[in-house]
């Protein structure tokens, strides 16, 4: 029976689809996990492009699961059909088997076919943008750009991925041409995209190996944009699906990327473009006159257009501050320089006008190396003697001023770090020499500069060049470099020669030079300290002087005043004395005893009683003072 055979084949195909989906899904999942380990968890791969290959692989897993479920449902549906057929035969059409409630597989299969595409498209869009968002986030927060541990090994791994992806992808796409395996197509398409990304990763790893680490950055940007486009396409597909005329029999699943299909499906890009248009608009757009016309004449139009573009290479403009040299077949036509304006020559590659600016100022640097090992140009903002400020410091030998006459061969030398920026511009009359007689004139000028500087500094004294001789040295150097360049017929005008960083070698000798400045400060400090001592001590002495004199003066005043007063008193007392000498004396004596000895303890003894002995105890105090009181005994001490 024909239908039985078809059904049988359906079941087999569905089972095969399930198997293929599982193989494809597991393979993709394994690769996705490997990518995650190699470039997400560790940074072994060190390549953004490689890391981004996780996206197509993840989507491949998603679509593999989708097609696996499709296969399972389709198998059970086909099984169900077979059962129905058998049932139909046995029951001989008594009841409509299609209404039998036991048979649900067919319906769920139909539902799956109807709704899952929308879900898958939406889910794929979510996955895409989530992963892209994560990439964006990590790229903006990370501080160091990862580099591969071993670029060649990374490239090797990427090549293996490439092989797996292209073979499996091509196989799935090929297989999907069969109607029953239609759902394998997105799996194949995304695997092919994974192949392309792996190819990028291989290329970027190889480029890294050969010293172009930027390639990875550019490729990862391209990849990012491509993924973003594909992500938007999911959304657009989701929407446009509603507006598509339902005329073509076999619908294309919504989740299938048409952009990818352009490249991954057989038949060539142009054919696929036309097919995609036909599919979207519902009629044969590719058979309209516009399309036919384009197909017929496009080729010629492109040719004419290319020729026009080519002819544009005949026109050259010499800019306002430039001069031009006309060349045809590589030969200079005339040594007369072209003034600013428009000129016509033979088209590329036969003729050209080489243009140079004779007003622009170029510069070369003699002395220190400014490019560090990462190829970055150093621009130190602070230049001190004691800290290394360039990648390599220049060291010029400088003669020392003291040449010992006794030891004649022992010429003593010193080192001087110098940087000598030379600014120059092309001399108009020497342009041909500059551009056509010298390869890399800037390098030649730099060497000439070094030669002149070496010679010049070998004959100057170090202290002079560091101080007063600096200006003169710059002028001399300019003159000598110009002369040497003219001897070489270099065709340049030296505009300016600067003399920068004239200092002893950093880190070693420069601290000693700075210490000299320090010692000058120390000297000044000592002197200022002494001066402050002077300023303090002299006024103090003046004050002492005033004090001594004042004391003397007050002594003089006191002694004279007292003497005067005493003299006057004596005069008065003498008068009283003269009046009655004995009484005066007695009176004054008794007066003294009464007044001045009133508080004095007195013992009065008779001197005329010879046999009497007095015992006086002076240990006993006459009176108790408060300070004599014994605090402990005060309470029970009877007062005497």
């Amino acid at each position: 029976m024909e239908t039985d055979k078809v059904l049988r084949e359906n079941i087999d195909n569905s089972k095969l689809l399930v198997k293929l989906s599982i193989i494809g899904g597991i393979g993709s999942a394994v690769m996705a996990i490997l990518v995650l380990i190699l470039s997400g968890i560790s940074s072994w791969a060190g390549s953004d492009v490689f890391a981004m290959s996780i996206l197509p692989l993840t989507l491949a897993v998603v679509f593999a699961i989708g097609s696996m479920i499709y296969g399972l449902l389709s198998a059970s549906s086909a099984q169900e059909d077979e059962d129905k057929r058998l049932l139909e035969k046995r029951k001989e059409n008594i009841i409509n088997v299609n209404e039998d409630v036991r048979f649900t597989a067919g319906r769920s299969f139909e539902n799956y076919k109807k709704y899952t595409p929308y879900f898958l498209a939406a889910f794929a869009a979510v996955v895409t943008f989530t992963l892209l968002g994560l990439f964006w986030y990590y790229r903006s927060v990370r501080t160091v750009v990862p580099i591969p541990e071993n670029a060649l090994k990374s490239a090797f791994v990427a090549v293996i991925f490439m092989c797996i992806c292209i073979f499996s992808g091509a196989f799935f796409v090929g297989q999907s041409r069969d109607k029953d395996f239609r759902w394998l197509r997105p799996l194949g398409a995304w695997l092919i995209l994974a192949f392309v990304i792996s190819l990028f990763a291989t290329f970027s790893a190889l480029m890294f190996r050969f010293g172009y680490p930027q390639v990875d950055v550019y490729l990862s940007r391209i990849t990012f944009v491509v993924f973003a486009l594909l992500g938007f396409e999911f959304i657009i597909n989701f929407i446009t699906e509603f507006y598509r005329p339902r005329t073509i029999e076999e619908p294309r699943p919504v989740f299938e990327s048409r952009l990818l299909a352009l490249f991954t499906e057989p038949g060539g890009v142009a054919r696929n473009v036309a097919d995609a248009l036909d599919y979207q608009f519902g009629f044969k757009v590719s058979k309209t006159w516009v399309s036919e016309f384009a197909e017929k004449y496009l080729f010629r139009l492109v040719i004419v257009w290319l020729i026009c573009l080519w002819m544009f290479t005949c026109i050259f403009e010499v800019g306002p501050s430039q001069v031009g040299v006309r060349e045809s077949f590589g030969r200079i036509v005339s040594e007369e320089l072209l003034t600013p304006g428009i000129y016509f020559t033979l088209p590329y590659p036969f003729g050209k006008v080489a243009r140079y600016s004779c007003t622009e100022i170029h510069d070369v640097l003699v002395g220190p190396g400014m490019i560090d090992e990462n190829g970055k140009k150093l621009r130190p903002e602070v230049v001190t003697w004691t800290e290394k400020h360039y990648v390599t410091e220049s060291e010029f030998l400088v003669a020392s001023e003291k040449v010992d006459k006794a030891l004649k061969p022992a010429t003593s030398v010193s080192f001087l770090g110098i940087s000598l920026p030379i600014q120059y511009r092309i001399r108009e009359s020497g342009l041909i020499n500059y551009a056509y007689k010298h390869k890399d004139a800037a390098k030649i000028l730099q060497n000439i500069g070094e030669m002149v500087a070496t010679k010049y500094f070998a004959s100057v004294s170090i202290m002079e060049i560091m101080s007063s001789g600096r200006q003169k040295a710059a002028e001399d150097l300019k003159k000598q470099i110009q002369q040497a360049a003219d001897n070489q017929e270099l065709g340049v005008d030296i505009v300016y020669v600067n003399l920068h960083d004239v200092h002893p070698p950093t880190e070693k000798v420069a601290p000693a030079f700075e210490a000299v400045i320090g010692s000058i400060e120390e000297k000044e400090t000592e002197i200022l300290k002494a001066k402050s001592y002077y300023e303090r001590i002299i006024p103090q002495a003046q004050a002492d002087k005033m004090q001594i004199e004042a004391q003397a003066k007050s002594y003089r005043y006191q002694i004279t005043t007292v003497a005067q007063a005493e003299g006057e008193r004596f005069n008065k007392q003498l008068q009283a004395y003269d009046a009655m000498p004995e009484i005066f004396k007695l009176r004054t004596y008794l007066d003294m005893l009464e007044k001045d000895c009133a508080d004095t303890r007195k013992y009065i003894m008779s001197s005329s009683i010879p046999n009497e002995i007095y015992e006086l105890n002076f240990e006993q105090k006459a009176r108790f003072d408060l300070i004599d009181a014994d605090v402990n005994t005060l309470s029970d001490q009877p007062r005497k």
Partner: protein
Amino acid sequence: MTAEANNTKITRHWPTMLLGLIVGAIFMIAVFSFKINSTETAVVTTFGKIEEQPAGPGLHFRWPYPVQEIFKFDNRYCCFNGNVGKLEETMTKDGQNIIAGIYIIYRIADAKEFFRSMVTMSNAEDQLNNWMRSIKDETFGRYEFNQLINTDPNKMCLDTIQNEICRKLNEKAKTYGIYIQSTGIKTINVPKSVSEKVFERMIQERNVVASGFRAAGEKEAKEIKIKADTERQVVLTDAEAAAKEIRAQGDADAAKYYAVFKKNPELATFLRKLDSLRKIMKSRTTLVLDTDSAPFDLMKMNADKLKPSAPVTEKK
């Protein structure tokens, strides 16, 4: 009919044919011509044999490969600093070790000779480097160190050395089609061990200067301190002297007033003693007095002595 058909066929296909012709022409041009820029010179070989006349700038006819082969060389002056051992330690006549580096500016003067002997630029540079090394070392070895470095520019021979190296290099390079336009000494340095010593000496030189400054500072400070002390001493001594004079003056003035004591020295003495006693007995003195002294003599009055002592008491 067939002619017409042919005709339409031709008209229909003329663009394709034209395109074919153009592509063919371009191919022919590419295969049968070669271009030499103004900055280049070229050697043409026919079946491996070098053509006598080297080609100048412009477009030239050629037989396609493998009949003729074109080897282009840059014939501009270019600068070469050397590669292996471009900075090399060498010795001067007086046995001083130096590190010297030179550059040369050269061009390919005779492309044919150059091609025959050197074939490629990198071969030529290796060869040039060898010559540069040997000639440089040899030339520097015939000059003394102070002819390289000297404060007196007239004693320096760097120019002579450069010219000598250039001349010798040219002698060697001439047969190889290379012309050396000029040579320059771009680096003269001393070996690292020596440069360490030089650094050491430079540091010591600076230390001497620094010590000088410090000592001068100390000296000046000391001078100022001594001056300050001296001035202070002078001021104080003056003050003392003045004070002494003032005191003496006071004493003299006082003496004048004491002259009145002369009128009655006995009384003056008495009064002075009294004053003194008054001061002495101001505090906590115990006075042991004899009853003979006034006024306690009054206490001795008894019956038998009352009479004779009465007049005394009265008197007193």
